């Protein structure tokens, strides 16, 4: 990777107001350019707001559409990651994030893990993404994961194995728990998760969480960068809007990967064999029972969320 300056855009988008949010992005980008940022990262669903429910199709955008060109134009002066609702083939709506550079689309990540439990209902409104891919940028190989994706460690692992050195994690993390001396519990938990993930994958993680309120939900902010040693560098405070720039130093990545060659030592064959065995076991395929000591975790029906491409 090349050393770069990333700006964390901890904004409060307006719910369901694409046009106003586009203006908010443009204003934030002007500010970030004054701070000499090379890349500006916005939160999950930064162009639409989070609690959309039945508004999902109304605010969705197709890649390549006139609306999408307007969004891509945001990146004319500085590279940008924005969150939006993408209408994909078959009128499926995805919770997506686009990496844009020089006015063009570089990569779209569609959120793979849609939380549908407790306070979350994303699986009802969105189609799940079915791929986790690293992609080249002018700063080096990058991967994007949206919020809940980070809670499934294989996502970050897959990206690092594909060569990603910078993981970008836009988020809409609601605030839960304000405990004395510990700050906002949900923000502290996120910071732990980021440090551990960055350390395991010896990668930078750029986490940008939104702020603001929707129907009594508040979003916690606490955007930050974890370096490849698992240290937080340059956090924004919780709850309030803000913009912070953090320099991601290529030498830190080199030092971390030299000191902890975890990625080098990864045993893909072992992983592949064990995954194959687990899969056979889970779906009662021949070969699954061999050498098993217990039952595999039950999983979703085969093929769910995975389309053949």
């Amino acid at each position, binding site marked *: 990777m090349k050393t770069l300056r990333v700006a964390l855009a901890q904004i409060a988008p307006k719910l369901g107001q694409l046009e106003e949010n586009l203006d908010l992005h443009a204003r934030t980008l002007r500010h970030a350019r004054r701070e000499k940022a090379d890349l500006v990262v916005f939160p999950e669903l930064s162009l639409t707001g989070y609690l959309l429910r039945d508004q999902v199709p109304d605010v969705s955008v197709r890649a390549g559409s006139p609306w999408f060109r307007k969004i891509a134009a945001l990146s004319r002066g500085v590279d940008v990651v924005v969150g939006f609702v993408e209408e994909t083939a078959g009128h499926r709506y995805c919770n997506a994030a686009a990496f844009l550079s020089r006015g063009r689309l570089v990569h779209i990540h569609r959120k793979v893990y849609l939380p549908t439990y407790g306070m979350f209902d994303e699986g009802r409104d969105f189609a799940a993404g079915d791929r986790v891919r690293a992609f080249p940028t002018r700063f080096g190989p990058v991967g994007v994961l949206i919020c809940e994706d980070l809670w499934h460690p294989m996502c970050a692992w897959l990206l690092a194995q594909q060569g990603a050195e910078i993981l970008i994690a836009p988020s809409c993390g609601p605030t839960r728990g304000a405990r004395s001396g510990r700050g906002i519990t949900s923000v502290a938990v996120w910071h732990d998760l980021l440090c551990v993930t960055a350390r395991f994958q010896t990668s930078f993680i750029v986490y940008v969480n939104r702020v603001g309120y929707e129907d009594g939900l508040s979003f916690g902010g606490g955007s930050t960068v974890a370096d490849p040693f698992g240290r937080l560098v340059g956090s924004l405070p919780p*709850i309030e809007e803000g913009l912070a720039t953090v320099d991601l130093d290529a030498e830190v990545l080199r030092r971390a990967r030299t000191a902890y060659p975890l990625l080098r030592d990864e045993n893909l064959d072992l992983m592949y064999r064990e995954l194959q065995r687990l899969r056979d076991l889970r779906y009662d395929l021949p070969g699954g029972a061999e050498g098993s000591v217990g039952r595999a975790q039950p999983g979703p029906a085969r093929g769910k969320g995975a389309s053949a491409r």
Partner: protein
Amino acid sequence: MRKTPRPVAATEPDLGLDPELTTRILRGFIRSEVHRAGMAGVVIGLSGGLDSSVAAFLAVRALGPESVRGVVLPYRSSHPDSSAHAELVLGKLGIVGERLEITPVVEAFSALSRPGSRLRLGNAMARIRMILLYDRSAEIGALVLGTSNKTELLLGYGTLHGDLASAINPLGDLYKTQVRALAEHLGVPRAIREKAPSADLWPRQSDEAELGFTYETVDRLLALLVDARVSRRSAIAAGFAPRLVDDVIRRIVRSQFKRRLPLIAKLSTRSIGWDFRYPRDWKS
């Protein structure tokens, strides 16, 4: 060496609260909702009790005193302390207040409807107060700020369309004992914080006497049953009397109707409450 923190038992109620962070979140909530509704401020019925006082203090932190209207709504049998404490809050916060004596309205209602129990009369009083607050809200372009806490909401200890009615409620996810902790942080006068909680719908009414348990006890139990989702058996094993646990569970279940909008019989393909799903903050 760093001290290892004490492990938290699965059945330990967590009622911890950072009062300053909580204040900041609730301040932002009130400000954000008032602005996106396009309103000038909030109107609060001040009873002189803990909850409405805390709501008023939060509202002033959020919006400034000029955007908060306090309305004191006494009845002839109301405890004199109630009005006095409400006036204390008005004075301390420097907000515009007004006093609307509801006695003649209650009497006109009684002559017409002849409520045969103090419960029915109490409900009517709560609803008359609601009517006056909503009328003020329309007059000055302000949201009615709710003051029901999580304990009351879960136990159903409130009047539907009365004190339970509001546009936004900053206290609905705080147990009574947490509201008390917040009150101290906000500087709510000691006299209000330390008196026995009462709906004051009839003389010598007391929440805790009427409910049959203290807020300290029931909040700890609710934090287990509701927040931690522990079983009845684990709650009893944690030291709560089986009768109390059963009483509280029964109250929660039986009062569910007070926490939901009226049921709509589904007939069409897209029905309000079922599959017409928009947030309150739709397009704002």
